C-alpha cells in the first residue's frame, strides 16, 4: 500500500466517531525548478505534501486542510468547527472506486537542471538575435504530483501526473515606453515547443513606433490565444452548475439552443493527452470524461459536482475541483476551442483591418456571471490589409462575452497552449473599442 493511502486511512479512522461520512484528499508534489534571468540562474528542488478533509456532521458539510506538518486530530477538530457554518449535505460520497489503469509517461525523468538551463539559454540566444535589448526572465518547474481521494464509504483512488509549468517574461525599452510580454503554459511530457513560445512572447513586442490615434466605436478585433483565454473566463463560470443553482447563469434554459457563433466548438477535455489539468477522476473521485460544452455554437449542458448535481436532481459530470481544504465546486479542466479547418494560420490577413489584442491587463469592472466585460488592454496594435501599421495605448474593450462570441468572423487554424488550454487566434466583429 502506498504511504499516502495509509495516511489517508488514518485520517478517516480519526473521523469515525464524529461524522456521518468523511472524505480525505491528498496531494504530494515532488519538483525541480529553475529561475532564470539575465543575471542569474537558480536551481531548486523540493517536495510538498498536503491533506484535505471534508466531513458530514449533523447534516452539514465542513472542510479543512493542512500542508506540511499534518496532525490528523487537529484536522478533524477544525473540520468539526467548519461543519457548524457549512452548507447542508444533500448527497452521499461515492461507495465505489474509479476503474483506472495508470500509464505513467516517464519522459519527464529525462528533464534535468542542465537540460532546462540549455533550453533557456538557447531561447535567450534566439531572442537576442531578434533584438539585443530584449530581456528574458523565466521560471520552469517540473515534477510529478500524486493525488489521493478516499472516503468512509470505501472509495480509494490514487493517480500520478507529471507536470511541467513554464512562464516567460520579456521586456524591451522603446522610444514610446517600456514593452513587456508574458506567457504561461503547462504541459506534461516535454518542455514547451520553442517556436510556439517565441511566437506568443514576441507577439506583443512589435517594434512599430507609430502611435495611431483610433476613433472609438465598433471594430474588428483579433484576440491572441492569451487574450482569448481571458475572454473565455465568463464561459468557464457560465457553464458551472453552481451558477445555475444561484439563478444567475446566463445559460439557464439555453441547452440545445444556438448561443455562440456556429464556427465555435468549445470542449472541456479532462482526458486530453498532455493536458496539465487532465485527471482520470475528479476531486470527489468521480470518473472524468471529455465533454463538448458548445457544439458549433449550440450549448450542450452544465458541469456538475456531487453537490450541484444533487440540488438539480441530475448526475455529477465528474467536474469537481477545489483547492486543498476548500469546498468543492464544478470547474472546467483543459478548455479547447476547435481550430478552423479551412482558415489560414494568418488571422490578421484574413480579417483585413482592425485591432490586435495580445494581452488583457485587467478585467476590473467585468462581470463573469452576466458575461459583461470591460477589458483594459494597454497597448494594442492597429493593422490594415493584414499588416501591423502602429500601436494604440490605453485601449479599453467592452461588451458582453456571449454577444462577442456570436460574432466570430475568423478562427485561426492553429491551436496554442495557454496555461492548460488549447486556443487559436480569433477575430470578432464589432467590438466596442475606446
Amino acid at each position, binding site marked *: 500500500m502506498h504511504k499516502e493511502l495509509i495516511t489517508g486511512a488514518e485520517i478517516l479512522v480519526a473521523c469515525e466517531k464524529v461524522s456521518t461520512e468523511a472524505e480525505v484528499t491528498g496531494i504530494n508534489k515532488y519538483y525541480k525548478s529553475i529561475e532564470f534571468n*539575465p543575471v542569474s540562474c*537558480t*536551481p531548486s528542488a523540493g517536495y510538498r505534501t498536503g491533506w484535505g478533509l471534508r466531513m458530514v456532521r449533523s447534516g452539514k458539510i465542513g472542510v479543512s486542510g493542512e500542508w506540511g506538518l499534518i496532525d490528523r486530530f487537529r484536522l478533524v477538530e477544525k473540520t468539526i468547527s*467548519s461543519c457548524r457554518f457549512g452548507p447542508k449535505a444533500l448527497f452521499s460520497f461515492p461507495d465505489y472506486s474509479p476503474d483506472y489503469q495508470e500509464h505513467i509517461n516517464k519522459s519527464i525523468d529525462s528533464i534535468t537542471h542542465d537540460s532546462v538551463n540549455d533550453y533557456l539559454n538557447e531561447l535567450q540566444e534566439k531572442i537576442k538575435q531578434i533584438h539585443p535589448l530584449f530581456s528574458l526572465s523565466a521560471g520552469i518547474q517540473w515534477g510529478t504530483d500524486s493525488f489521493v481521494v478516499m472516503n468512509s464509504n470505501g472509495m480509494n483512488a490514487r493517480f500520478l501526473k507529471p507536470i511541467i509549468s513554464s512562464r516567460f517574461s520579456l*521586456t524591451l525599452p522603446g522610444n514610446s515606453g517600456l514593452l513587456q510580454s*508574458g506567457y504561461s503554459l503547462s504541459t506534461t511530457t516535454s518542455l514547451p515547443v520553442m517556436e510556439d513560445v517565441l511566437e506568443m512572447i514576441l507577439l506583443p513586442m512589435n517594434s512599430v513606433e507609430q502611435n495611431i490615434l483610433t476613433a472609438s466605436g465598433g471594430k474588428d478585433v483579433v484576440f491572441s490565444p492569451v487574450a482569448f483565454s481571458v475572454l473565455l473566463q465568463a464561459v468557464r463560470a457560465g457553464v458551472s452548475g453552481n451558477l445555475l443553482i444561484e439563478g444567475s447563469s446566463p445559460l439557464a434554459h439555453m441547452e440545445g439552443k444556438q448561443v455562440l457563433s456556429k464556427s465555435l466548438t468549445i470542449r472541456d477535455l479532462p482526458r486530453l493527452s498532455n493536458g496539465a489539468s487532465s485527471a482520470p477522476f475528479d476531486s470527489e473521485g468521480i470518473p472524468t470524461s471529455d465533454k463538448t460544452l458548445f457544439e458549433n455554437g449550440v450549448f450542450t449542458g452544465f458541469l456538475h459536482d456531487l453537490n450541484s448535481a444533487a440540488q438539480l436532481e441530475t448526475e455529477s459530470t465528474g467536474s469537481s475541483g477545489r483547492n486543498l481544504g*476548500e469546498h468543492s465546486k464544478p470547474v472546467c479542466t483543459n478548455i479547447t476551442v476547435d481550430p478552423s479547418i479551412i482558415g489560414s494560420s494568418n488571422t490578421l490577413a484574413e480579417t483585413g483591418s482592425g485591432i490586435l489584442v495580445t494581452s488583457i491587463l485587467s*478585467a476590473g469592472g467585468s462581470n463573469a456571471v452576466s458575461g459583461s466585460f470591460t477589458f483594459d488592454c494597454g497597448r494594442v496594435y492597429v493593422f490594415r490589409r493584414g499588416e501591423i501599421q502602429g500601436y494604440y*495605448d490605453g485601449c479599453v474593450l467592452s461588451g458582453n462575452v456571449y454577444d462577442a462570441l456570436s460574432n466570430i468572423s475568423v478562427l485561426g487554424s492553429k491551436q496554442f497552449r495557454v496555461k492548460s488550454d488549447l486556443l487559436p487566434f480569433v477575430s470578432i466583429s464589432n467590438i466596442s473599442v475606446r
Partner: protein
Amino acid sequence: MQKYREIAEKVMTGSEADFAEIRLLRTARTTVTQAGLSSMNTGPIEQFTGTARVMISGRWAMYEFSTPDEMSKAMDMAAALAIQSKSSPVIFPILPPACRDTFIDMEDGVPLSNVPLREKAFLCRHYCDLLGASISKGSARVTYDEIIRDKVIVNSTGTSIREIENLGSMNIQAVLPGGLISSNEFALRGSFDRFKDKERQITQIGKELQSRKTTTISAPGKKRVILDPILTGILVHEAFGHLVEADFLENNPAIAKMLRIGSRVGSDCVSIVDDSQLTEHPGSLHWDDEGTPGSKTQLVSSGKISSWLHTMSTAAKYKTNPTGNARISDRGGIPEARMTCTYMEQGTTPLEKLKIHLDNGLYMKGFLGGATDMDRFSIAVEEVWTVKNGVIHEPVVPMVISGKVTDILKSVLNTGDDLKLSGSLFGCSRFGSKTIPVTYGGPHILISEIQVN
C-alpha cells in the same frame, strides 16, 4: 516553531556554504463569506514549509521541505544543487549585521488568532445584513480573510529571528441591479477589535452607492482631475513602485538607466516612501524574508528618485545596503525586492482648496481594478463626479484613467493634507509570483491632465 528554530540553528552550525539560510514559515488561513443569507467558511488551512538556501562559489540553490526533520537533508540537497550548478557566478550578497530577536503582534486588543470562528462569522453576517438593508435592491456580500504567519529565519551570519503576524481583511461589496458596484476593503495587522464598530461606515457605503445611480456619461479625453487617497495609493504602488524594485531593474539595465538615482520622475510636490515599520498595517514587517530589519526608504524626494528597493543580492550589485524589502510570494520561492507600505507623502493643502483649483474637472474616488504594463497603467475608477466651479456637481458612469506614470507624476499640481493608507492581504502581484500583503496610500492629489476613457 520555537523548537524548529532551535533545530535550524543547530543545522546551521554545520554548514560549510559561503552563505546559508533556513526559512521556516507556518501559516493559517481562514475565510468566512456571507452573501445575502448564505454563509460559507474555509479553514483555517494550515501550512508549514521550510526552505534551505545556500550560496557556494557565487551560485545560489534552494531546497524546499515539508517537515522539520528534513532540515539537515534539505541543506545538503541545496548545497549539492549549488555545486552542480552551471550558471554564471553572481556577486556575494551584502549581509546585514547578525540579529537574534522575536516579534509577536500584541496590541491592547485581541489578536485575530484568538478570536473564535463564530465571532468572525457573526460579524460578517451583521455587516452583510446592514449593507443589504441600506440598498433597496441588489446584493450584499461580506468576506473576512485572515492569515496568521509565523516565520523564522536563521542564517550562517548568526541571525535567528522569528516574527508572528496577524493579518486580516474585510471586504464589503454591494452590487446594484445594472452592475453598479461598491467594493471596500478594511485590512489590518494586529487586533480583531479594529474590525468592530463599522456600522456607520457600512450603512454609508450602501447609501453612497444608491446616490451614484446615473446614466450620465462624461466625454473621454484629457482631463484635470483630483484623485482620492486610494487612487493615489494605487497609482504610487502599481504604476511607480514596481519600477523601482531593484531585481526588476537588475534584469533591465536600460530601464535602470532611465530611473537612475537623481532622475526626475515627478513634479516638485511628489515625494514617495516605502515604510515597512507601520506595524498596524498589513504590508509591514519587522524583518524581511532574508532577516534584514524593515526600514523607511525614501523612493522619491521632491520629484527625483532617491532610492530603489533592495534585497541582499541587489544591494551588492548596486553597492548599497539592503532596504529590508526581500519578500517571498510563494513557498520555496526566491526572495524578490517588493514593496511593503508605500505611499505619497502629504502636502499642506486642504481638499476644499484643491477642488477650487480643479475648477471644472472630475473628482475620482475608489478603485475597481487596474493593471500596469511596465511604465504605462490603466485604472478603473469606482466613482466619478463632475465638479463645477470647485463644487461637486453630479455623478457620471465609472471611467478608466490611463497613461505613462512619469507623465502623470510630473503633472501633479498639488497634494492634499489628508494622507490615508489602505491595504490588502492579496494586494500585490507580479507576473509569475503569487500575491503578498501590502499597504498603499497618499493624500488627495490634483493632476493637471490625465487621459480619461
